[in-house]
């Protein structure tokens, strides 16, 4: 069942490529239909989810490359199921949003469907090699999206993105191989590795392996100082590409922290948790401050991603610093981290689609060129306001639920630094309100026509509805995450 969900999109992508006669219209609607079907199946998975003894549901294990101890091993638990669902939701939104697309539609649809399989694959993989293959392919897919459908500077941004994340994934592979070699018997299976704890007492080797894995994941997240690929990639990517990049691909980094680094390298992770925490805090503050200085709407949102993902890194760092007596706080921080991943995916995904709408209307992301849009495009202004307040952590939206858990859980680990990170919430408010004022309030600068279209509303509206639903009634989500978070 899980495998069907994962591979359905890529099968559809191949079918689209194999049917050159289909008109763009058919291609677009097929894309939407397949994405909707995937989402429906994921909802069914969610409803039927009951984790087995291993803690995972829908587990499948097939020997794949037995000589190296690698198998096709997939399954979902409370850490991955929310991200699988997020992936399905965002890909559907992007498919709907792209109904307007006219440029090489077939390739775009095929590429996105391929990417969907890859992203789902990362989150369900329980084998390091499988994880790595999907992780690497996501970079390839996104590279083509940016380079092929991006704005003017796309080629350069795409190369930067590729080099950066690709070097990161090489580091990750080195780390995985290190784990493999240390395990006895050799294996790439995450659950076996967790049970074996192969790096226990390995000293410097363990540190090197963790360094490789953490660097690989940190590039993808991204954290300061390896974040500089992100702003150009976002600015030059098409709106739907940005939404997937920020909404899904960034999560692979932090998901790797909770799925691989924390459980398989527990002692090393704990020993270096203060470093992780510090990186998280720096990312939070630094990302917010640099975002504050941006004049380009999309670039600003890109930097807020550094800030928001910083909270996740902060939480997983703090969680490891908390002693066993504070297991409750640790669980809270990890649950908050996963909630934040989902929340950031929804809200920032929406913000990137909205920035696409802005570009569509005004042909620029430069905020100074706009003014007073609220009078001309009330619906667009309204939904952007909702996204903006959701993103700055207003209670009633998912971001608050996540950040509240993260801070409540983490404050015990290092009260003063974590308290300091709370300033990030303040700076985010400054930058978002300033941007909103410049673009939407005040006197009209340029005349722009065309409020939100139906497809835009259908693409973006549900993301905001979900953010509100999680903000007010988060229980359905927290009850899934909590058991998985408590074993970390």
């Amino acid at each position, binding site marked *: 069942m899980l495998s069907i969900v994962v591979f359905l999109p890529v099968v559809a992508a191949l079918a689209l490529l194999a049917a050159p006669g289909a008109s763009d219209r058919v291609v677009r609607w097929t894309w939407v239909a397949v994405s909707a079907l995937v989402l429906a199946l994921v909802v069914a998975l969610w409803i039927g989810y009951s984790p087995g003894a291993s803690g995972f549901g829908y587990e499948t294990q097939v020997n794949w490359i037995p000589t*190296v101890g690698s198998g096709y091993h997939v399954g979902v638990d409370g850490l991955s199921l929310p991200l699988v669902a997020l992936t399905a939701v965002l890909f559907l939104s992007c498919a709907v949003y792209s109904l307007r697309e006219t440029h090489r539609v077939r390739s775009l649809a095929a590429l996105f469907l391929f990417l969907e399989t890859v992203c789902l694959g990362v989150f369900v993989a329980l084998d390091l090699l499988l994880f790595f293959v999907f992780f*690497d392919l996501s970079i*390839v897919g996104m*590279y*083509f999206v940016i380079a*092929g459908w991006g704005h003017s500077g796309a080629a350069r941004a795409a*190369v*930067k993105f*590729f*080099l*950066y994340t*690709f070097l990161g994934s*090489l580091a990750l*592979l080195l780390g995985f*191989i290190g784990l*493999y*070699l240390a395990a006895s018997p*050799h294996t790439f299976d995450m659950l076996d590795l967790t049970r074996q704890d192969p790096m226990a007492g390995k000293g410097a080797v363990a540190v090197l392996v963790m360094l490789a894995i953490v660097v690989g994941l940190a590039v993808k997240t991204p954290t*300061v*100082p*390896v974040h*500089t690929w992100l702003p150009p990639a976002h600015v030059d990517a098409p709106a739907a590409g940005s939404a997937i990049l920020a909404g899904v691909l960034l999560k692979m980094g932090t998901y790797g922290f909770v799925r691989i680094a924390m459980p398989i390298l527990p002692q090393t992770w704990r020993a270096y948790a203060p470093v992780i925490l510090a990186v998280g805090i720096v990312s939070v503050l*630094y990302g917010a*401050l*640099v975002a*504050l*200085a941006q004049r380009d709407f999309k670039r600003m949102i890109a930097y807020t991603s550094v800030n928001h993902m910083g909270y996740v890194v902060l939480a997983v760092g703090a969680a490891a610093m908390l002693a066993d007596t504070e297991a*409750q706080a640790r*669980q*809270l921080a990890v*649950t*908050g981290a996963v909630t934040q991943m989902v929340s950031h995916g929804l809200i920032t995904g929406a913000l990137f689609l909205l920035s696409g709408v802005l570009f569509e209307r005004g042909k620029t992301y430069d905020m100074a060129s706009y003014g*007073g849009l*609220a009078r001309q495009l009330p619906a667009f202004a309204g939904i952007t306001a909702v996204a903006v*307040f959701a993103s700055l952590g*207003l*209670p*009633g939206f998912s971001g608050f*639920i996540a950040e*509240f*858990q993260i*801070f*409540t859980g983490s*404050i015990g680990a290092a009260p003063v630094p974590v*308290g300091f990170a*709370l300033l990030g*919430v*303040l700076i985010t408010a400054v930058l978002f*309100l*300033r941007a909103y*004022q410049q673009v939407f*309030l*005040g*006197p009209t600068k340029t005349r722009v026509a065309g409020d939100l279209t139906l497809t835009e509303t259908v693409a973006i509206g549900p993301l905001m509805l979900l953010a509100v639903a999680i903000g*007010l*009634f*988060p*229980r359905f989500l*927290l*009850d899934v995450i909590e058991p998985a978070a408590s074993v970390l």
Partner: protein
Amino acid sequence: MIASSWLLVAFPALGALILLLGGNRTNAWGHLLGCATVIASFVYGLAMFFADSFAEAADTTVYSWIPVGALQVDFGLRIDPLSVTFVLLITGVGSLIHIYSIGYMAEDRDRRRFFAYLNLFVASMLVLVLGNSFVTLYLGWEGVGLASYLLIGWYTDRPSAATAAKKAFLMNRVGDVGLALAIFLMFKHIGSTSYAEVFAGIGDVSPGVVTAIGLLLLLGACGKSGQFPLQAWLPDAMEGPTPVSALIHAATMVTAGVYLVARSAPIYNLTEDGRLLVTIVGAFTLLLGSIIGCAYDDIKKVLAYSTVSQIGYMMLAVGLGPFGYALGIAHLLTHGFFKAGLFLGAGSVMHAMNDEVDMRKFGGLYRKMPITFATFGLGYLAIIGFPFLSGFYTKDAIIEAAFGQEGWRGWIFGGSALLAAGITGFYMTRLVLLTFFGKQRWRETTSADGREFHPHESPPVMTVPMIVLAVGSVAAGALLISGDTLAEFLVPAVGELSESDHGVLPHALIPWLTVLISALGVLLAWTLFGRRDTPVERPANVSWPVRAARKDLYGNALNEALVATPGLWLTRFSVFADNRGVDGAVNGLAAGLGGGSGRLRRLQTGFVRSYALSMLGGGVLLVGALLAVRYS
């Protein structure tokens, strides 16, 4: 009735939802729905007030909101005397102001959306006062901040309105950070955020932590209530439509800080340092607000600084702990009546004067607007503490309690409260004289946008709420204070009201001393503004105290120097680091690799190179690993 008390919140929340999602389809009846939902809550609140007894706090859980392990935050409500008092104030004054807004906003094409925001505000404010944990309080706390932001920035085409809205939200956020940190500390040390468990467990927490929590809560209170050093947003918030100023920025939201301190009485009772700082903030702010209030010519800004000053009184009172919780709440209630009435009166004047706010362009209006004048006059008498009107009871009680402190505290707190009473007499008299008396200083012609205007009395839909509030301003004080009615009612929430039997001045003397000082202020204002004509142009050549007061006693400059400028430099530094430091190094690498791949591109066109490179790199590593395993 208590079990269904969530209906109190549900009515206005539903109203806001219908009006926002319904869009223009609801334009025809939107304002009526907006009023109806708030009145429904008021009626429910009244029925609850008479039907139930509030001897004990009743907590009801609506649903489990954030359940994660040890953190079990319920969306729950606490019905006790304190919350019920606030419910009646919010929905009562709220209903009147909703009705008034029908007339005030009649010509605004977005009136329906205005009522949606007002309903959103009422719903959030009710969550704030009804919530039974600090997290539900925080939900309402930020909700009212959002409503305030939307309503201050109502006139979206005015850049000043947008800036004021942003400033209000951000300065509130500074306070919110304090409140949030206090909540995190509560969870860390007590393991819960609900009132019941926090208040039960706070005794076992170390005194240093209790004081820290107290101070952080105070920071939150200062933000929301416009107290020093976070007072500068409140006068700017007057950019919003006047009913908003009356409801949010005078009667209800800005008093939330006082509510927070009173609600946290069990915490503040344990920290004398925390209480002392609350008192100091209150005493300082009440003087600051009253002094600046003397310098403005903008009728709404004078009232705004008056609000800052009056909330200072309330803060001073609740800072006195058991000596003052009930007094602070009493003054909060009477202030809610008379200040809302004064603002609605000011709105009525602006309505008549084509939205003019400069008092130097008013004059002699009592003839044109008799009802406005009469109701405003009663509010005026109430705020300056005219004997046997509201302010006389509730403000004097605070001054008395302040003088009841021992030693220097009695002299400093009592003295500043007494002095500010005199200044209040001065600036309020000045306001009334400039607006309603003297020669007519407006020229009855056309306004800037070419419309003719003639000062006129407002329609009944506006004057009736003003009359009701005026009646409240007259009577509320006597009702609440005589026989300690309110203080006894509040006992289950904030404890018994203590009265000090010592103090630096005899008790019986203080009320009359206050009246005397206020009368001096009135007299001084009359000498300066009643007996001679006021120039229409604002005198530029004035002494330094006036100059300082006109510059808000440098409150904005202080914020600028302490927060904005360092923030700016920090931002610039980060951007510099981002461009030169981190990215510079990476760009060097990327340029090298990019150059290499550029050369590669000539050999292999297209995107294939990257893909190939990726797979190649992965493959080499993999093979290497396999070989290593095989031969190790």
